[in-house]
């Protein structure tokens, strides 16, 4: 199932709605990279609030998205990692230090606003 990606000014917001298969995750990576290029986006938020499991494959893929978009000059913030999911990721041994995270969408937008030094609501 495809993840909807909304454009808000210089930022893309990918809101994961349901459990993702590995194929869905790879599709998301491709879609985000395509849209960053198309819209010349400066920031990306991936909202994982709906994910009840982030196993090593999903975690690695999200980290991959963050690294790849950074190489394109855009910053990615992963928002909404559930407390139990965070616990499981640590037990699993997932390294996520080099990925920006925020509590929720609002905090993620605030973080990008500071980093991009511009308002995010203009420019359609």
């Amino acid at each position, binding site marked *: 199932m495809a993840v909807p990606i909304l454009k808000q000014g210089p930022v893309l917001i990918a809101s994961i709605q349901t*459990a*993702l*298969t*590995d*194929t869905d995750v790879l599709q998301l990576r491709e879609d985000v990279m395509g849209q960053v290029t198309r819209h010349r986006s400066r920031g990306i938020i991936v909202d994982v609030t709906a994910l*009840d*499991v*982030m*196993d*090593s*494959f999903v975690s*690695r893929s999200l980290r991959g998205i963050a690294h790849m978009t950074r190489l394109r000059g855009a910053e990615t913030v992963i928002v909404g990692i*559930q*407390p*139990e*999911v965070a*616990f*499981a990721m640590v*037990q*699993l*041994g*997932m390294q996520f230090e080099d990925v920006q995270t925020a509590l929720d969408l609002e905090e993620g937008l605030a973080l990008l606003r500071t980093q991009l030094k511009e308002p995010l609501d203009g420019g359609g």
Partner: protein
Amino acid sequence: MEAESRIAIESDADVVTARQRARELAAELDLSSTDQTLLATAISEVARNITTYAKRGEVRLRVVRDGDGRPGIEVVAADHGPGIADVERALQDGYTTGGGLGLGLPGARRLVDEFDIQSAPSAGTTVTLVMWSRTAARGVRA
């Protein structure tokens, strides 16, 4: 003897089905939300190993009880794939032959209460996980 639930693992969608089915069972047994998540994540790792290395296999779920009658969920992930030549090594963080992070087996082992793996080259692999209910254990002590 409680019913066993069997999920054929042939695609990445089956991996999601297996972990969701286990979570439902875990919720029925009143496992904490955290334990449900740990179990579901561990299943995701071992079931993905089936699709990655053996192409197909199955995940079996059943309720088990220890000597005090405390319930738990036993998960058996079995395949008849190529097997693992060096099981000790496969249980070390960072070792992989499949292009992943090498966290699957060692990670899954850290996520559950009990972990067992039986494997031999060309004989397939069987991984058994158990997660015990903690609520009932407290009840027994009280």
